[in-house]
C-alpha cells in the first residue's frame, strides 16, 4: 500500500511539475533579456483555454497545442511592443495582461457553455502517455519516470537546450548581455530591441505550452481561472532555481511534489480540510522565498526601461 502510494505520488509530482517548468523557462528567457514578465499567469491561462478550445472543436489535441502556441506568441508580442517599443512600465503591463486574459477566457468559456458546445462533464481528446519500451518495465522506477506523455520528455530536452543556448552560443551571450546592460550591448552591435522581442515571444509560447499541458494532458476540461496561481509559483521557481535552467528543473520538481502531495493525501482519504491542504504549495513558496533569496542576483537591467537614443 505504501509502495503504491509512493510510486503514484512521485509519478504525479513529475506530471505536475511539467507545466510549472515550461512556464518558468519561458519566464527565465525573457527575464534574462531584461524584461520582467508578470503576465506569465495570463499567458498560461490563455494557453490552457486555447488548447482546450482547439481540441474541443477539432477533436485533435495537436490543433489545440498549435492554437495555444499562436496565442502565446501574440501575447508575447503585445508584451514586447508595449515594454520595448513604447517603453511602458513592465510591471503594470504584465498585470494588465493577467486581468485581460482572465476576463477573456472566462467570458468565452461561458459563451461556449451558453451555446451548448460543452457542459461540466465534457472531456476533450488529449495526449496519452507513452510507455518507453524496456525502461517502463523496470519495477517502480519504470512507472515513475518512463510512463509520461511526450511533452514531459520534451521539457527535459528544453532544459538541456536552453542551458546550452545561454552559455555556449553567441545568441545566448547576446541575450544575456542585453539583460545586463542594453546600452553597451547596443553599442557593440547587438539589436537589443530585436533580442527582447524574440525573448518575449518565446516566453509567451512556452508559458502557453505550460498552460496547454494542464488541459491537454491532466484535466481534459477547462474551468475559469484554472491556473490558480501557477504562473506566480513559476516566478518563485525562477528565483529558487537561481536563474539557471538546471536549478529550475529541480525547483519545479520540488513544487510539483508539493502539489502532488495535496492530491495524494486526498486520494488516500486523509481527513483534513481541503483549504489547509491547498495552502501547502503557497506556504512552501513563501518559505522558499525567505530561505534562499538575497544571495541571488538577477539580470542587472531587469524591469528597467531602455529607450534607444
Amino acid at each position, binding site marked *: 500500500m505504501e509502495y503504491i502510494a509512493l510510486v503514484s505520488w512521485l509519478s504525479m509530482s513529475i506530471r505536475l511539475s511539467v507545466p510549472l517548468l515550461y512556464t518558468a523557462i519561458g519566464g527565465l528567457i525573457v527575464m534574462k533579456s531584461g524584461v520582467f514578465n*508578470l503576465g506569465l499567469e*495570463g499567458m498560461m491561462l490563455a494557453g490552457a483555454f486555447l488548447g482546450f478550445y482547439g481540441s474541443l472543436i477539432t477533436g485533435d489535441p495537436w490543433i489545440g497545442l498549435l492554437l495555444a502556441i499562436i496565442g502565446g506568441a501574440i501575447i508575447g508580442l503585445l508584451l514586447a511592443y*508595449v515594454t520595448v517599443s513604447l517603453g511602458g512600465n513592465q510591471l503594470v503591463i504584465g498585470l494588465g495582461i*493577467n*486581468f*485581460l486574459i482572465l476576463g477573456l477566457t472566462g467570458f468565452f468559456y461561458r459563451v461556449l457553455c451558453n451555446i451548448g458546445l460543452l457542459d461540466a462533464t465534457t472531456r476533450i481528446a488529449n495526449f496519452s502517455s507513452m510507455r518507453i519500451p524496456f525502461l517502463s518495465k523496470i519495477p517502480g522506477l519504470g512507472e515513475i519516470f518512463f510512463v509520461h506523455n511526450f511533452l514531459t520528455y520534451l521539457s527535459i530536452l528544453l532544459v538541456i537546450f536552453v542551458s546550452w543556448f545561454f552559455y555556449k552560443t553567441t545568441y545566448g551571450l547576446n541575450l544575456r548581455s542585453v539583460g545586463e546592460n542594453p546600452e553597451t550591448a547596443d553599442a557593440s552591435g547587438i539589436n537589443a530591441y530585436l533580442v527582447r522581442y524574440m525573448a518575449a515571444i518565446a516566453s509567451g509560447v512556452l508559458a502557453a505550452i505550460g498552460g496547454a499541458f494542464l488541459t491537454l494532458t491532466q484535466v481534459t476540461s477547462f474551468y475559469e481561472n484554472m491556473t490558480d496561481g501557477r504562473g*506566480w509559483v513559476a*516566478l*518563485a521557481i525562477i528565483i529558487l532555481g537561481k536563474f539557471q535552467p538546471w536549478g529550475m528543473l529541480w525547483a519545479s520538481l520540488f513544487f510539483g511534489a508539493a502539489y502532488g502531495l495535496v492530491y495524494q493525501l486526498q486520494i488516500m482519504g486523509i481527513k483534513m480540510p481541503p483549504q489547509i491542504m491547498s495552502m501547502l504549495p503557497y506556504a512552501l513558496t513563501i518559505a522558499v*522565498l525567505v530561505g534562499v533569496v538575497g544571495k541571488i542576483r538577477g539580470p542587472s537591467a531587469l524591469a528597467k526601461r531602455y529607450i534607444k537614443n
Partner: protein
Amino acid sequence: MLNSVFGNIRLFSESFTHFVPLVFCGLSFAIAYKGGFFNVGAEGQLFLGALTATLAGLYIQGLPAFIHIPLVLLAGFIGGAFWCWIAGILKIKVGTNEIISTIILSYLAILLVEFVARYILRPPGSYVSSSEKIARSAYFSPLIAGTQINLGLILCLLAVVIIYYFLFRSPYGYQTRAIGENPNSAYYAGINIIKGTMTVIIISGGLAGLAAACMLMGTHRRLVTAFSLGYGFQGIGVSVMARHTPLGIILTAFLFSLMRVGAGAMQRGLGVPLPICWAIEGMIMILITASEYVTNKLSANLVGGKS
C-alpha cells in the same frame, strides 16, 4: 447598461457598495506605488482585515456604536497592515521580491478565511459556510433611508483627503515619493529609507483592511467565504487609471463601480458575465501603459522645443 445603472435609485445606490472598497484598494495601491513598493496583494490584505474585523465585531459585545465602530475599523486596519507588513519585512530583511510575496500571501489569506468561515466560526448546526452576524452596535446604518449609502462613503472620501495631504502636502509624503523615485538619492539625502518604506507598507495594507471593515459593517455583516470578489485586484486598475493620484481615484473608482453594477445587471438581463469587467480592466491597464509613451514624447518635445 447605462439604463440599468441610472435607471432606478436602488441600483444607483448599489454602486456605492462597490465604490467604497474600490476607493480604499485604489488608495492602497497608489500610496505603495508612490513609495516604490509594488503591493499587488491588496486582495489578501482585505481578506485578513475581514477576519480580524469580524473577530472584533463578534466577540466585543455591549459597547455603544460610537466606540464599537472605530474598534472594528482599527481591527481591520491592523489585520490588513499585518499581512502587508510580512511582505515588507521579507523585502527589507531578505530581499524577497514583493510582487511574488504579496500575491502568494493573497492566495494564502483567501484560503485561510475560507477555512475559518467554514470550520471555525460557523455556528453549530448551520449549513451555510459563514460566521454569525456581528454585533448590532457595529452596523453601519444607511445615511439616506432605503439606499446603500452609509458611513463607509464618508470614511473613504476622508481617506482620499488624508492620503492626498500625506503624499503631497507633508514632509513624510515628500520623503515617500523621493524613496519611490530613486532610493539611492533618497538615502544620500539623509532619508531613513527603511522607516519610510515600512510606514508606507503599513498604511497600504491598512487601507485594504479598512475596505474590509467597511464592507463588513456596511453590507456583509458576517464573514463569508467569497468575501471580496476581486476588489483588491481591481484597485490596481483603479489606481493605474488615475495615475496613482488620490483625487483621480475617486473618479476611476466610480467608473469601475458603475461597470460592476452594470455587469451585474447585464448578467441578470442578457447573460453578459462579470469576466467582461476583468477584461476591460486589463485593457485599460494595457492602454494606459502604452499611452505613457505618447505623453512622454509630447512633453519631451514641448520642453525640448523639438515640436
